[in-house]
């Protein structure tokens, strides 16, 4: 694996999506995808827990492990190039700036952004979503350019019942501040959006939807949502936390206006996420946080603001983390996101089969590998997920238990919490089999 440590701002062209040749290439890529070789890039995966048991890490929807290339990139940055960015004319400042902006360029190319200036670095995806929500809240006091974002009584914000709390709470708060109304799409029994008419209306200002659910695994029909939103002139914000790390993403193809995602779920460091926004929208959007770096001129009475993306990056940014994220993007690009997606698709199908053999296990979410990704929630009879997770942990198997920051989903399906296994590009069929065997041990332990 090679890493561009200098972070040179060279756009890595993404191959065009959708052609027959691409499909054939993706298939070949999947066949050549050697997960055991990939795993060698991730030092943590070699460790053991609880007295020598091999770690089976199935909590990837919470966060991913990091390849050596990412760890090296951060270390190299601090050892050789550390300086503050966008100021100073010394060598280190210029190198640090080039590396930080180089990372932006890599991220932009990775998601098919028209220009790097459409990518705003945030501390995480939650901040990316809050950035849009607060900018909309600030639009009332901004000039006529911000009219597109203005919100008040009678206006509507549309979300869905399967959102992560970070795509619910910011919109609840925005509606409380502005007097707008929050509406949402409910869910079908199978864990899909119930796309009824009448939720999106000509009063809808923005539609905020998750691309792939972190709790149900459902991959949502973005094109359908975009068509409904565009028909009434509403904006679309897509939460890509669980999709950007697992499939090829092209924002132009998706047709959305904003895409929020986190770095640490895509093999990058914690402390960095991103908001992609359409260039014309970011240019018209009022700022969220004020401070250094985000201004054009400042007087004691008032300030004018920098152009995007810097308008939305107040203060010293997360430079090392962004550099690490750039290395993660290089790593994923070298593996090939189509190959990654094919690997995880096969793994998800296998996992659904294995979980289907555990008596009394109920999948919460789509039961087939169609239109779903590799985050699988389930209930084991009426055992509490904490007990399931604890016994699995003693076997070395790391899963997530709880409501996964999606409490309305648990309420919808009548469970206090779920156990969730989630996969990544380094997960293996052996690990899925270990989960299946572990669940049988759990049942035996509690005498079910």
């Amino acid at each position, binding site marked *: 694996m090679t890493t561009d440590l200098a972070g040179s701002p060279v756009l890595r062209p993404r191959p065009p999506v959708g052609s027959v040749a691409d499909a054939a290439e993706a298939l070949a890529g999947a066949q050549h995808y050697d997960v055991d070789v990939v795993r060698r890039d991730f030092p943590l995966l070699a460790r053991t827990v609880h007295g020598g048991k091999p770690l089976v890490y199935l909590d990837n929807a919470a966060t991913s492990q990091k390849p050596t290339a990412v760890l090296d990139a951060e270390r190299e940055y601090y050892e050789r190039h550390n300086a503050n960015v966008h100021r100073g004319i010394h060598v280190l400042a210029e190198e640090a700036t080039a590396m930080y902006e180089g990372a932006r360029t890599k991220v932009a190319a990775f998601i098919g952004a028209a220009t790097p200036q459409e990518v705003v670095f945030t501390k995480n995806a939650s901040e990316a979503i809050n950035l849009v929500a607060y900018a909309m809240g600030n639009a009332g006091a901004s000039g006529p350019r911000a009219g597109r974002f203005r919100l008040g009584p009678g206006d509507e914000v549309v979300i869905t019942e399967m959102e992560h709390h970070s795509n619910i709470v910011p919109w609840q708060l925005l509606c409380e501040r502005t007097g707008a109304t929050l509406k949402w799409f409910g869910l079908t029994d199978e864990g899909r959006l119930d796309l009824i008419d009448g939720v999106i209306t000509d009063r809808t200002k923005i539609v905020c939807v998750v691309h792939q659910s972190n709790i149900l695994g459902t991959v949502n029909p973005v094109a359908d949502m975009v068509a409904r939103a565009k028909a009434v002139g509403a904006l679309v914000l897509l939460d890509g936390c669980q999709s950007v790390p697992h499939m090829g993403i092209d924002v132009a193809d998706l047709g959305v206006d904003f895409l929020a995602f986190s770095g640490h779920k895509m093999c990058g460091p914690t402390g960095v996420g991103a908001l992609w926004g359409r260039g014309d929208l970011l240019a018209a959007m009022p700022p969220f946080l004020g401070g250094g770096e985000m201004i054009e001129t400042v007087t004691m009475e008032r300030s004018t603001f920098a152009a995007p993306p810097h308008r939305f990056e107040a203060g010293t940014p997360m430079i090392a983390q962004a550099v690490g994220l750039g290395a993660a993007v290089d790593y994923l690009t070298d593996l090939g996101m189509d190959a990654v997606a094919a690997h995880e698709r096969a793994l998800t199908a296998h996992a659904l089969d294995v979980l289907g053999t555990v008596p009394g296990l109920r999948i919460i979410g789509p039961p087939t590998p169609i239109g779903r990704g590799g985050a699988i929630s389930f209930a084991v009879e009426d055992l509490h997920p*904490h007990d399931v997770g604890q*016994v699995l942990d003693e076997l070395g198997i790391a899963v997530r238990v709880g*409501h996964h920051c999606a*409490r309305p989903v*648990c309420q919808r399906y009548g469970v*206090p919490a779920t156990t969730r296994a989630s996969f990544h590009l380094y997960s293996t069929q052996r690990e899925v089999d270990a989960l299946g065997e572990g669940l049988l041990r759990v049942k035996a332990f509690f005498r079910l």
Partner: protein
Amino acid sequence: MYQDIILDHYRNPHHSGLREPFDAEVHHVNPTCGDEVTLRVRVDGERIEDVSYESTGCSISQAAASVLTDLVVGQELSDALSIHERFLEMMHSQGRGEPDEDVLEDAVAFVGVSRYPARIKCALLPWMAWKDATAQALAQKGVHS
């Protein structure tokens, strides 16, 4: 961590179900995992007359509620609070506590749980609910504890 005593209380909880009469009722939630308990307390003077509860949650929180009722029902208030203190102390011992079985009875089984930071609050949930309900019951009766 899952000692047989805990699993026994989980499978066959003591004093479970909500009963009348009662002086105060509280509902406590463990927001990170969704454990919930509704708990009622009836006090008579300085004595804990009854503690009844309904709970959903993991084996640890359910067993803790069962053990709690065994320990405090019928006790003088000051004794019950002292038992609560000893239980708290044990749960913060990171597995190193040497609890007195004469005082804590079946609750000594929870010393293993104190090694698991994520589960300590499961064991404490019914105790926090009990303390809250008891304080409310006393306040209502004009007693200041």
